[in-house]
């Protein structure tokens, strides 16, 4: 096969993986019916696997199964992942091509490629910080977790997050705009005229207003800006991100140090430097025989453009030595390790501050509501890579990136915002798509005892408590019968049963008091630090609520037992 053909094959491979990435992302909707886990790209990311396991101090098997083959392939084949598979790399290639970003001349590209190794080491330094894990300590275990900030730089997490927080709303808006404004068709019109289109759209639940609600994410713009910024760096140098910043690239490059896949340059080389100009990674220096092995992403463009046919790709050939690798400064490496540790210390300045049993900092917002199945707070914040899959898949749009609820260390982690949407009783999608098991899988039936928080009625703004009007919408909507009514001065009003309420937030969502509702879910009842079995037992111990109005005539008698004794007494 000629190297030109090989280049075509590589591009096809990139597109194939990119399409698979987009398709799996789009199909990540409740109920999940994808042939492979929708988070497979994230789980295959060795950096995510490494960081999660190092910072949690334990093996996470669902990550290991997928990340190990990729790691193995990198040891043998070098950074083949970066050139052939990585959706971020493909997005950058496409972006650079579309926007005609060609970078500066190779000699003028900034020599910053060591940076990514320092980034990697710095991040590892953060993970090394021993943070006494609160819930473990309460259980008498001496377990600690580190602090992971891998989410800031991991490319797979980054692109998934961009698709989730910015891509989904944009795609939905486009679909809604075209269906509502351009065609003006209603759902029934679609069903009549274009049943196939409707069927094609329904698995991805794209936005015809009759098919899906518009989704909204806070911080979507910020995420998008970062993504655009990464591509725009192509003005300075092609694949700037992959050469200089990507910690995954650094990790794979380091692992591929002794890879078998190498370039061999024959004596036919005329030093025309065409390959030097062609190399996206700037991995070929002035001497083609001494390229940077850890920087090569195996695109083989050099071989394709070589007029003399002097460059060939070989497996295991030792005939040509290559420049050892990027030379790293030991002092700087230690410096980055220390900087990472220091950053973790600074992020954890809350040491000594009061924490709840679930590990929630008592100075953080009382609105720090985590999805059901979430790990205790310390572990959760560390394990979450902020990929946004849980937020994308949440059918009620209730999961949003944290902006301040959990402090700086929890930035971008999922929080339940009941006023945007409730945690639907039947849904367990977030637990099925979390690549690092920061949200552990759970069955919908378990939701009755996965306590996220507790609702409380604000009696001064509640319609029923503060006026003589009738409103018990929260009671109507409660999925777990955790709200019942009391009669106070002859009026019905809602009360919450704290030992039954799991904090799903549907009461807050339906509350007609604008704008913020008169019933609020707070993180007070958060019981993540307990095992599911313990939570289940607590739920079983809770007494079933008794309605004060039961059996009364007239208003409120709606709940009266045995009211339907004889069906037709009036006749």
């Amino acid at each position, binding site marked *: 096969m000629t190297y030109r053909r090989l280049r075509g094959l590589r591009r096809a491979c990139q597109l194939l993986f990119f399409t698979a990435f987009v398709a799996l992302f789009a199909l990540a909707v409740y109920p999940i019916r994808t042939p492979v886990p929708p988070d497979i790209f994230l789980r295959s990311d060795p950096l995510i696997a490494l960081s999660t396991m190092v910072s949690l101090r334990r093996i996470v098997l669902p990550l290991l199964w997928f990340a190990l083959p990729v790691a193995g392939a990198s040891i043998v084949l070098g950074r083949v992942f970066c050139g052939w598979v990585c959706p971020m790399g493909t997005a950058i290639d496409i972006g650079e091509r579309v926007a005609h970003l060609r970078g500066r001349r190779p000699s003028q590209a900034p020599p910053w490629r060591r940076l990514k190794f320092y980034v990697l080491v710095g991040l590892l330094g953060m993970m090394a910080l021993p943070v006494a894990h609160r819930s473990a300590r309460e259980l008498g275990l001496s377990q600690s977790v580190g602090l992971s900030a891998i989410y800031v730089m991991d490319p797979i997490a980054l692109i998934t997050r961009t698709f989730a927080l910015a891509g989904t709303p944009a795609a939905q808006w486009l679909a809604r705009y075209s269906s509502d404004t351009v065609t003006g068709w209603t759902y029934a019109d679609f069903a*009549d005229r274009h049943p196939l289109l409707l069927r094609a759209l329904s698995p991805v639940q794209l936005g015809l207003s009759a098919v899906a609600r518009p989704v909204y994410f806070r911080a979507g713009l910020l995420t998008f800006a970062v993504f655009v910024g990464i591509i725009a760096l192509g003005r300075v140098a092609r694949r700037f991100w992959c050469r200089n910043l990507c910690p995954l690239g650094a990790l794979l490059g380091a692992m591929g140090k002794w890879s078998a896949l190498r370039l061999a340059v024959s004596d036919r080389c005329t030093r025309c430097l065409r390959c030097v100009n062609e190399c996206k990674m700037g991995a070929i220096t002035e001497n083609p025989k001494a390229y940077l092995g850890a920087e090569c992403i195996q695109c083989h463009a050099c071989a394709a453009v070589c007029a003399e046919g002097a460059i060939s790709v070989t497996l295991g050939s030792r005939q040509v030595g290559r420049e050892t690798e990027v030379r790293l400064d030991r002092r700087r490496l230690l410096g980055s390790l220390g900087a990472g540790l220091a950053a973790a210390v600074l992020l954890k300045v809350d040491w000594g501050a009061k924490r709840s049993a679930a590990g929630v900092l008592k100075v953080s917002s009382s609105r720090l509501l985590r999805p059901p199945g979430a790990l205790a707070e310390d572990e959760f914040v560390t394990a979450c890579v902020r990929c946004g899959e849980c937020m994308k898949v949440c*059918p009620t749009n209730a999961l949003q990136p944290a902006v301040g609820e959990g402090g700086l260390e929890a930035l971008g982690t999922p929080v339940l915002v009941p006023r945007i949407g409730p945690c639907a009783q039947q849904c367990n999608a977030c637990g099925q798509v979390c690549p690092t098991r920061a949200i552990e899988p759970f069955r919908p039936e378990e939701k009755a005892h996965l306590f996220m928080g507790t609702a409380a009625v604000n009696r001064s703004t509640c319609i029923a408590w503060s006026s003589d009007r009738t409103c018990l919408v929260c009671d109507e909507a409660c999925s777990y019968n955790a709200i019942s009514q009391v009669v106070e001065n002859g009026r019905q009003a809602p009360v919450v049963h704290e030992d039954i309420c799991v904090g799903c937030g*549907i009461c807050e969502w339906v509350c*007609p008091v604008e704008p913020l509702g008169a019933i609020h879910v707070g993180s007070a009842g958060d019981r993540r630090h307990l095992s599911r079995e313990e939570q289940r037992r607590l739920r079983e111990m809770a007494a079933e609520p008794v309605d004060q109005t039961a059996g009364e005539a007239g208003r*409120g008698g709606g*709940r009266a037992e045995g009211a339907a004794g004889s069906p037709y007494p009036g006749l």
Partner: protein
Amino acid sequence: MSRDEYTRRDFIRRALGLGLAAYGLGKGLKLAGGESAAEAAGKPTVVVARNRKPAELVRAAVDALGGMGKFVKRGNTVLVKPNIGWARKPEQAATTNPEVVAEVVRLCKAAGARQVKVMDHAVDRPDQVILSMTGIQAAATAAGAAVSMASSPALYERVNIKRGKALKQTDVMRDLLRADVFINVPIAKVHSSTVLTLGLKNLMGTVWDRGAWHGSASLDQAIADYLTEIKPDLVILDAVRILLTNGPKGPGRTKDLSLVAAGTDSLAVDAYGATLFGKRPEEIGHLARAREMGVGEIDLRRITIKNV
């Protein structure tokens, strides 16, 4: 004062009503069996079908009202509004029986309807779960309907409630306003804030902002006001299985009645529905208010119950 105006109007209506009722009664006795006489006298009819399979209950009830052809003409667009408000299974009786909805759709199609839309605006989330869990999407789609949730404000249009007391205006489903025929297919349940939810209460699922109704001077009055403007052409009350406790969402105690009641007077059907729970219609606030607005009859003595 509105109260004065009220009394006067009420007096005239009652006088007329009593006169007509007396006339009808006499005529009815004379004809011995005379529904037609009762109808002629303006006495609303509620057809009650019992002890059959759900689909057959619907067919029997509609047939007794003169068949679906009386309501749906060839080429009509029909909006069917069941209760698809909650993510609950059909057997939990929090949503309309899917077989009942499917049969209504089939009858409309058989009568020549061009398009039958089955729509609701659910309280619960998310729509996909509700549509599939209630069984209504599958059943009604198979019967030939387009089933959807109106979950976007873009699908609503402002309507002025001219005679409204608590409710002056509200945003109503555009598909309802444009439909030639509007069929309300509620399920009978207890309800924590309105005692019962029957046909009138089910109409709350045709507006965008229900919260405004709760925030209004009186929820009961708002429900009554709405009927002065938006009147179903036909009400088919599903009481195949009714929910007795923890309404409207349940889960709670249920009871199998194997019954479907139907009629054109929304209030009369609801008045009959109340008796299924051992309630007098006047006990139900919104029915009493609607009666005061003069949009129908709740006095069971003035309603013809036709058992089939």
